[in-house]
């Protein structure tokens, strides 16, 4: 037969609790115990509220650029809920909800965006990495972290998150390819929120799905409604079980939407219409879950009010902790460079306030040293 079939593939889409409130009993029943469901809901509400707090902090000059997570809470949360506490979670910057569930202190995330490296000093053991800025690069680290665990005979796996835009980076391809060919159990999760700043997702992929990016590597691929916590939990269960049992990677696309601006430095109204945003507001993962819980008598307005109060309090405390930290010492950025600081850096650190870098103080004739120091002092004074 001259024409034969070399390869065939099929990708499923999973939805359990849809935007109209329809709930699929077959897949959904018993998927998440009611007690957990309430906690998960509360986590989403808390994350959403922190977004608003952060936004205000930025606008009032108390924080730098901040990327809101609004609308995407169910994606990383579903993953964090399913993962073992000692599985690696290697994320980008729109996975706060999942990170907080894993126990990352809110002030760590706040500090990062307040321009303070100490926000990246993840208290161990959370099995999470700090915020990543260069897109598409963290998935390779997820593969390495997992391979190191495998090397030690641990059955730890990793789940790594990245956006529709980030999946265009070459490192994305290399990470998937390395994980597949070197047999590293990583669950690759693409958060397709339809936008990369102002760039619509079709410019990052003209293909019908982002899920099929995994087919290149022969990975099992799934797509799910990322605004449906039940769907993200179900999809992650299947994926995590697959990777842990086979030691191989797999691929997930979570279809969601960025309800806010890209960051506080962005104005989304420049490039997308209100109608589109409104349509997605109706698909808000929080509203959807609240309606479901209310119908199931797991939730009511009183509980909501109490939660709102508690959350506001908690988040205010987190902000206080973030703002309460002593301001960093300018010596820090020298001391943090190497395990053992090179002599030349010591000199730079010690003389940064007293001499120019080209100057070897010891070379100056003593009186000249004094003159220079004195002139410098005067000048400094003149500046203030």
């Amino acid at each position, binding site marked *: 037969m001259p024409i034969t079939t070399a390869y065939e593939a099929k990708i499923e889409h999973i939805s359990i609790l849809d935007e109209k409130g329809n709930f699929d009993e077959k897949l959904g029943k018993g998927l998440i115990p009611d007690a957990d469901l309430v906690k998960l809901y509360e986590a989403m509400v808390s994350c959403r509220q922190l977004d608003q707090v952060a936004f205000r902090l930025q606008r009032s000059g108390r924080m730098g650029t901040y990327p809101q997570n609004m609308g995407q809470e169910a994606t990383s949360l579903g993953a964090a809920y399913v993962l073992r506490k000692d599985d690696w979670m290697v994320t980008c910057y729109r996975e706060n909800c999942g990170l907080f569930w894993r126990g990352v202190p809110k002030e760590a995330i706040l500090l990062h965006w307040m321009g303070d490296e100490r926000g990246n000093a993840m208290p161990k053991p959370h099995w999470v990495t700090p915020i990543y800025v*260069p897109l598409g690069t963290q998935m390779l680290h997820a593969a390495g972290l997992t391979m190191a665990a495998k090397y030690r005979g641990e059955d730890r796996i990793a789940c790594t998150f990245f956006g529709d835009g980030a999946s265009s980076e070459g490192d994305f391809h290399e990470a998937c390819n390395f994980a597949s060919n070197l047999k590293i159990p990583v669950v690759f999760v693409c958060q397709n929120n339809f936008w990369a700043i102002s760039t619509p997702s079709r410019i990052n992929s003209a293909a019908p799905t982002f899920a099929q990016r995994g087919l290149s590597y022969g990975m099992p691929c799934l797509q799910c409604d990322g605004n449906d916590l039940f769907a993200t939990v179900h999809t992650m269960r299947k994926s995590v079980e697959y990777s842990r049992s086979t030691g191989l990677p797999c691929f997930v696309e979570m279809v969601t939407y960025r309800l806010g601006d890209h960051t506080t430095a962005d104005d989304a109204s420049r490039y997308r219409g209100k109608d589109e945003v409104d349509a997605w507001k109706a698909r808000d993962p929080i509203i959807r879950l609240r309606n479901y819980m209310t119908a199931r008598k797991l939730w009511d307005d009183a509980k909501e009010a109490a939660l709102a109060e508690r959350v506001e309090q908690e988040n205010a405390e987190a902000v206080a902790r973030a703002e309460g930290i002593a301001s960093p010492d300018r010596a820090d950025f020298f001391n943090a*460079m190497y395990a053992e600081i090179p002599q030349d850096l010591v000199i730079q650190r010690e003389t940064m306030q007293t001499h120019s870098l080209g100057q070897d103080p010891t070379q100056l004739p003593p009186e*000249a040293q004094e*003159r220079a120091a004195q002139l410098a002092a005067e000048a400094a004074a*003149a500046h203030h």
Partner: protein
Amino acid sequence: MANLNLVQAINLALIQEMEKNPDIVLLGEDIGVNGGVFRVTEGLQKRFGEKRVFDTPLAESGIIGLSIGLAMGGLHPVPEIQFEGFLGPAYDQICSHAARMRSRTRGAFTVPMTIRIPVGGGIHAPELHSDSPEAIYAHTPGLKVVMPSSPYDAKGLLVSALRDPDPVMFFEPKRIYRAFREEVPEDEYTLPIGKARTVCEGDDLTIVSWGASVVQCMQAIEKASESGGPSIELIDLRTIYPFDMDAVEASVRKTGRCVIVHEAPLTCGFGSEIAARIMEKCFLELEAPVQRVAGFDTTMPYYKLELDYLPDAIRVTRAIHDCLAY
């Protein structure tokens, strides 16, 4: 004559050259409808259409690699890399191809391309949004490296870049994108790539700088003159490669003392080349070692500490005194 800031001056240069030369195309992340995250390409897609101004997938190597192909194919692409911190993924296409294409093919293929890159610190940006990698590209033969310090210079230098038959790295100091305005002729003018500008003349000491640091130097010079201090000559290099050593040499032969100021880390920063050349060319006239005021040999700190890292008027003043006291 219009009173423009750096962003507007670049935008104007792009418009005027695009109208003259149909082979100029703009591409990059968010440069279309959004006009770029700094709005430098604001309104250009509406004006010139999606064929000449288009958004790309989020991949810097792809942006530069595609642009190299466009240039080999006869166009003059103007890719924008959103921040200098994201040049990394494009490093290989820039250094292994754009810089080598003409020489490796002995001119059969060339890469007329102007890579626009916001550069430098001081705007309280996140990590990897505040670096100064000009020395990396100055050390890569085959490229030209430009960094304007004012709206007027930006327009004149960009027009030259857009007419250059070889690849130009056009670094735009984001710290002064909107810091000040100045008179910028609507009419066509160019500033030659490779020529420095003497910002102010002086006899006691020469300052050599480029990009946003030039502004810090001017502040230091003002302070100095207020307090009846030394007479200082300031040279804005404008072009990092090929650099105008003649201007530097002439000035230092006159003053005998020199301070170099840049944001990039000290070690192997471009200041080291200037310092070495000054020694080679002005050895007999030099009265003190050339002083360097630069970023430290550390990673650019997050913004809480960035002002401790960046050269400022105080540090420049200190260097002036160190140099004069020698």
